[in-house]
């Protein structure tokens, strides 16, 4: 694969617990984790596993709707910010594409309607109308005049990273001139129950990589980037926030819900991303790990990162955001870009005791970094793996 030209991030938009814009992200990452929200917010019947709620204001003036509109609302907010901050004008500046990763946003989101039918009640109309009318990529394409390639990617927890990879390839092959890419997910009773029943959900704040970790906390959010060629960005005089230097994607082909014990697929994805970026592991300044705080993920990923990136800072950020599913990979790509801008990596909260199975200790304090390149990893149901190499704006 050709390693040039370069593809620049000129717009960033983000929604996560405690913030409805990218401006609030750095403060969120460096402050102690926010208090978890009770699951009863999602549904009176929800199991008592707390989650990181998106701010109520991020769902629009009518608040959380408890249907497919919620994910679209988060995506719309982040997309609007990313496009606005980039200054890119669809049509005038070129053809715009859209790639949005999600899980809840594409699931069969009509639990209440089905429940009503089973009880011989008449379903309310809003839920199904929003199920069919709130597909993230399709609706955002219409709203933001994106006439290029359009994909709503549903690859479980790698969706957000894969959407960025899709955007990269759309640009590389000339299918469009700029891409809004990233991910979004709001929660509801069905996905929340599903994760709880898989016995991987912690009833207390999660502890990524910690020996006593009990599982993940789910979260809500959206992270969107405006990606274009460096030449296009410089021609427009846009502010470059960084670059997507490499992307790798793979599947374990081992087990549907558990990662390959030797991280076979993750290694392949990371190798591909590094090769595309033209860099060895030693050239990476730090890693933002997937680090969901489940026993399986953190064991597999922790062992791999400890051996592949010895001595490199490994940052586990999900203690602050929760696992935002389809948004995770794109939010964490944004986190990496911000950390590269600041020259520091935040602490990994809630870590106290190293796991002897991995030997990995994530960042315990805010850590200065230099070198200009970061790696972000994602792993998902179905055995998917995604790796992104992010470069700072000043990196050659």
């Amino acid at each position, binding site marked *: *694969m050709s390693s040039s030209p370069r593809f620049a991030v000129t717009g960033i938009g983000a929604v996560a617990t405690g913030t409805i814009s990218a401006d609030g992200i750095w403060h969120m990452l460096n402050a102690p984790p926010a208090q978890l929200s009770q699951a009863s917010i999602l549904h009176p019947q*929800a199991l008592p596993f707390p989650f990181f709620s998106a701010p109520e204001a991020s769902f629009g003036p009518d608040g959380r709707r408890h249907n497919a509109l919620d994910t679209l609302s988060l995506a719309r907010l982040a997309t609007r910010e990313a496009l606005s901050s980039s200054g890119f004008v669809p049509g005038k500046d070129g053809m715009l*594409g859209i790639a949005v990763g999600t899980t809840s946003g594409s699931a069969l989101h009509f639990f209440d309607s089905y429940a009503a039918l089973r009880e011989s009640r008449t379903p309310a109309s809003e839920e199904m109308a929003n199920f069919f009318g709130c597909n993230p990529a399709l609706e955002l394409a219409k709203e933001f005049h994106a006439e290029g390639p359009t994909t709503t*990617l*549903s690859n479980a927890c790698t969706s957000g990273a894969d959407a960025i990879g899709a955007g990269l390839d759309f640009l590389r092959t000339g299918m469009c001139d700029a891409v809004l890419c990233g991910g979004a997910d709001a929660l509801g009773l069905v996905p929340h129950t599903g994760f709880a029943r898989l016995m991987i959900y912690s009833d207390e704040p999660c502890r990524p990589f910690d020996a006593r970790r009990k599982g993940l906390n789910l979260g809500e959010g959206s992270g969107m980037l405006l990606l274009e060629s460096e030449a296009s960005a410089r021609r427009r005089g846009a502010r470059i926030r960084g670059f997507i230097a490499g992307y790798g*994607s793979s599947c374990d082909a081992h087990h*549907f819900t558990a990662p390959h014990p030797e991280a076979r697929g993750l290694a392949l994805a990371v190798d591909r991303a590094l090769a595309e970026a033209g860099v060895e592991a030693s050239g990476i300044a730090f890693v933002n790990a997937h680090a969901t705080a489940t026993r399986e993920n953190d064991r597999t990923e922790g062992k791999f990162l400890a051996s592949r990136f010895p001595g490199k800072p490994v940052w586990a950020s999900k203690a602050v955001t929760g696992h935002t599913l389809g948004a995770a990979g794109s939010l964490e790509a944004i986190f990496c870009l911000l950390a590269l801008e600041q020259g520091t990596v935040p602490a990994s909260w809630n870590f106290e005791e190293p796991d002897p199975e991995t030997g990995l200790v994530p960042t315990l304090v805010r850590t200065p970094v230099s070198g200009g390149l970061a790696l972000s990893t994602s792993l998902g149901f179905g055995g998917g793996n995604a790796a992104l190499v992010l470069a700072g704006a000043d990196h050659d």
Partner: protein
Amino acid sequence: MTELFDNALSVLGTGAVHSLGQLAGLLDLRLRDAAWATSQEIPGTDTSQLAQIFPKLSLRRVPRAARTCLLATGLALQDASICPEVLKIPGRTGIFVGTAFSSATTSMDFMDSILDGGPKLSSPTAFSHSVSNVEAGMLSLLLGIQGPCMTVTQFALSFAGALASAQAQLNSGRIDLALCGAMEERDARFADVCSATNYSAQAPVADGAVFFVLARHKPGTPCLASGFGTPPAFVAPLRGEGALGVLFGQGSLAQAIDAATMLAEANTPAGTIAKDSHSGLEGHVIYVNAEGAPQD
């Protein structure tokens, strides 16, 4: 190639399986009218041929939708004369599945389990099999494919989106081979919810999966491409008003079936073969072009 075929991919093989047969059956169905389709008892897909194509595979606990995809993929690989062992070269084959509703049966099963016994007693297996990428993940697992696995879920435009993703990854050199297709699964409970809320046209009437084995374009081969922006003058969808329209008219399979039936015909002409807009709403358009191999 016309200018519409920027980024086009060569079609090495096609496989289709649906409630009323396989690829040859689709060509027959094109001759049937809507009234005939409406009068038919529509069964689930017959995936018994899997035992012949993949005799060593254990399909225990593989959801029905994934079996349908696996059979369509197996038929496409046979059509392409590609040995499944080739797929195991790490990272060089990608999977791209377009689906509006993925495994509708297991999604409804999970909702039933919540309603039957409450969230505390709901089925974790049903949940894990209800995620949208279950088909792509199962194809990866069963065929040993370690490359990228993408699932595109955007209703009627799902296949076109999957094809666009395959184009982007193949033409950027990320992979060398793509298994790209669409699938849908009927479910009576899902159909009932759609019917009760005035969305009956959205529920799949028939099961099915269509898969293509795709590679970077080589001259003289049949090819597929997705297109964006202002569509050119186009030929009306092949499924039209007849039986195919009744069975597949609204779902993600429709464009894939149009592409498959057109490529399957002898002396296939060039040109745009389908245009679809987002269901029920003023629309976003992605068009799919198919072109047959030039005739000597």
